[in-house]
């Protein structure tokens, strides 16, 4: 087993990997950019090293710097998390050259899957079902127009090196194509350092369902069930669940077997995810393979009882997969909410800044994978994901009501979060019935009648609360508007005494 693992990431996923390392008795090494010195992953690691400026290209994407730290501190493996360098075949190769084990698939597998066009060619050979489109990067706007006209609008532009919605554009008409292509290319260049973009038929309001697979170095590959990831905004997943309300055991088996076939065709080792588009008739089409841990891996962990990060590490260390396909025991239901620093009342604009107050949910069936803490200033440079709230229950209805309860316990002040969005989702009848697709969030009414009624009803409570704060503030300061004890750590009763002593009450 490894002695020391460098975690080439930040935020909640770095914390997640550090926890797994600790549970395996492996020392963990954090790396951090200038704005992340006080980030949670740095606080929680065993060792930590600065790797440069805030811009990811000068720190979390800087391969030589990261490898230099790994060798200086004696790390024998690197976990890339998701995003950043996790699907960068050059990085995997550079690790191999430096004799540091990359915890993930080989550079060759990553490279094949990393180029969506090449992946498509290989997977078509292996008989995997596909959505019609180009299997190569677009060379010109004219070519794009021609292909789009052939397969018919709407079409989807996608970054060949992409993932997570970056560099993706839906195009509904030929007139939109030039500006959309330019935007997609520039976003792809900025996000992945590669502007290659391809085109395929857009399936309107499909479901997005993915299958977790995992394989060891000895050719054993199994699937661990699907995740329903249809709730997306701007192609960014927002809420995931497992199992999918759509998928029955037979469909699960078929998808699982295709996913394993995909992995085998790529000689894939370690944890990976095969994404499918599913249409209204339950047909599924291969979308891409994510050659890394997914953000939403916890929902699979909850329903299988497995620890995917620990399995990743064990497999990378050369262990055999510890269970067979028939030993995968799926039980119950799980959902994950991605808590983003964004303002749902203001077009979901990012909301970085200082977390002034933070109350986190807990109790039965609640798991929180967080990358932040009260007092931490969320920087503007990175992904707005603050934390993942994952809940599990006996079945889907219990999981939903538990999630609603946990969200009610979640409180953040100082920055805005999308918590209120989930309240609307969980109250929606289509959602409750499992009728979801990638257009769900767009159709979801922005107004929340329940919240508005509650707001009206409780306005006098807010008034009373405000007045109590005024009284408490004045009780020790003597002023009428000072920043008194109600801010500080006042005892529950001490202010009352003080107020009485000063004749204020």
């Amino acid at each position: 087993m490894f002695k020391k693992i460098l975690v080439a990431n930040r935020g909640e996923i770095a914390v997640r990997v550090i926890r797994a390392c600790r549970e395996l008795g492996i020392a963990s090494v954090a790396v951090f950019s200038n704005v992340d010195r006080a980030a949670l992953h740095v606080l929680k690691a065993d060792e930590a090293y600065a790797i440069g400026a805030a811009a990811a290209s000068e720190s979390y994407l800087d391969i030589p710097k990261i490898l230099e730290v790994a060798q200086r501190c004696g790390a024998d493996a690197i976990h890339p998390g998701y995003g950043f360098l996790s699907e960068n075949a050059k990085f995997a190769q550079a690790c191999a050259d430096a004799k540091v084990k990359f915890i993930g698939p080989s550079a060759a597998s990553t490279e094949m899957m990393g180029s969506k066009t090449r992946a498509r060619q290989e997977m078509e050979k292996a008989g995997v079902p596909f959505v019609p489109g180009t299997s190569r990067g677009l060379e010109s706007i004219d070519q794009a127009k021609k292909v789009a006209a052939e397969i018919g609008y709407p079409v989807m532009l996608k970054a060949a090196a992409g993932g997570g919605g970056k560099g993706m554009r839906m195009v509904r008409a030929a007139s939109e194509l030039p500006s959309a292509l330019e935007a997609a290319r520039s976003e792809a260049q900025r996000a992945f350092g590669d502007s290659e973009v391809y085109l395929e038929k857009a399936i309107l309001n499909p479901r997005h369902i993915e299958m977790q697979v995992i394989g060891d170095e000895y050719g054993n590959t199994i699937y661990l069930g699907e995740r329903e990831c249809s709730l997306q905004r701007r192609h960014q997943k927002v809420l995931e669940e497992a199992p999918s309300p759509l998928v029955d055991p037979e469909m699960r088996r078929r998808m699982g077997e295709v996913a394993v076939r995909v992995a085998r065709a790529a000689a894939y080792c370690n944890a990976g995810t095969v994404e499918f588009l599913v249409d209204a008739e339950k047909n599924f089409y291969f979308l891409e393979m994510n050659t890394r841990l997914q953000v939403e891996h916890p929902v699979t962990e909850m329903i299988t009882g497995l620890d995917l990060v620990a399995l990743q590490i064990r497999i990378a260390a050369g262990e055999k997969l510890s269970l067979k396909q028939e030993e995968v025991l799926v039980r119950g239901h799980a959902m994950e909410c991605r808590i983003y620093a964004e303002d749902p009342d203001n077009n979901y604009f990012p909301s970085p800044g200082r977390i002034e107050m933070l109350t986190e949910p807990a109790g039965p069936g609640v798991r929180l994978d967080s990358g932040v803490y009260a007092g931490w200033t969320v920087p503007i440079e990175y992904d707005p994901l603050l934390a993942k709230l994952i809940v599990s229950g006996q079945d889907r209805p219990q999981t939903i009501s538990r999630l609603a309860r946990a969200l009610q316990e979640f409180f953040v002040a100082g920055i805005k979060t999308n918590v209120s969005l989930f309240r609307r989702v969980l109250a929606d009848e289509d959602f409750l019935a499992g009728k979801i697709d990638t257009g769900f969030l767009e159709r979801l009414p922005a107004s929340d009648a329940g919240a508005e009624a509650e707001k009206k009803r409780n306005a006098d409570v807010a008034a009373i609360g405000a007045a109590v704060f005024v009284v408490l503030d004045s009780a020790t300061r003597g002023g009428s508007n000072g920043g008194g004890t109600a801010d500080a750590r006042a005892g529950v009763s001490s202010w009352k005494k003080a107020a009485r002593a000063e004749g204020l009450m």
Partner: protein
Amino acid sequence: MICKVAIDGTGYRLELDGESGGWRCRVNGQEVQMDAVLAQPNVLSLVIQGRVYQVRRERRDSGWRIWVGDICYATEVSDPKSLRSRKLRGDGEKGPRQLLAPMPGKVIRLLLSENSPVEAGQGVVIVEAMKMQNEIKSPKKGTLRRLAVVEGAAVNAGDVLAIVE
């Protein structure tokens, strides 16, 4: 103690009184059975006629935010002048309107040039933050009177990006 507060712009007059063993509270002259304790800094537990409320305070430059559970109220206390001044701040359709940066970030693109006509909802500036490109749109139809930023500029939340007239 008499205290005036405005909750989302609506004024309330409160009389609060603490005796041994409890509080007395009147809201707009009407008696309300209420108890309050400060559980944590800026976190109150209120019990009003048996019902429990968790009330939190967040101090902002513009006043307080008072949270009842997860519902947020813009709150101003004890300063009638600021109430009045807020009402005077034009939010109407007439006159020049400012485009403000809704979050800190970097201006990566100016979509219009000064003095061009602009539709309501048309994009004016793109600000990148947290790896996302955010199009800042005009709140009204008119003319882009001024662009206050250049491409590449770093902006803070609330900074003026442009003025539409």
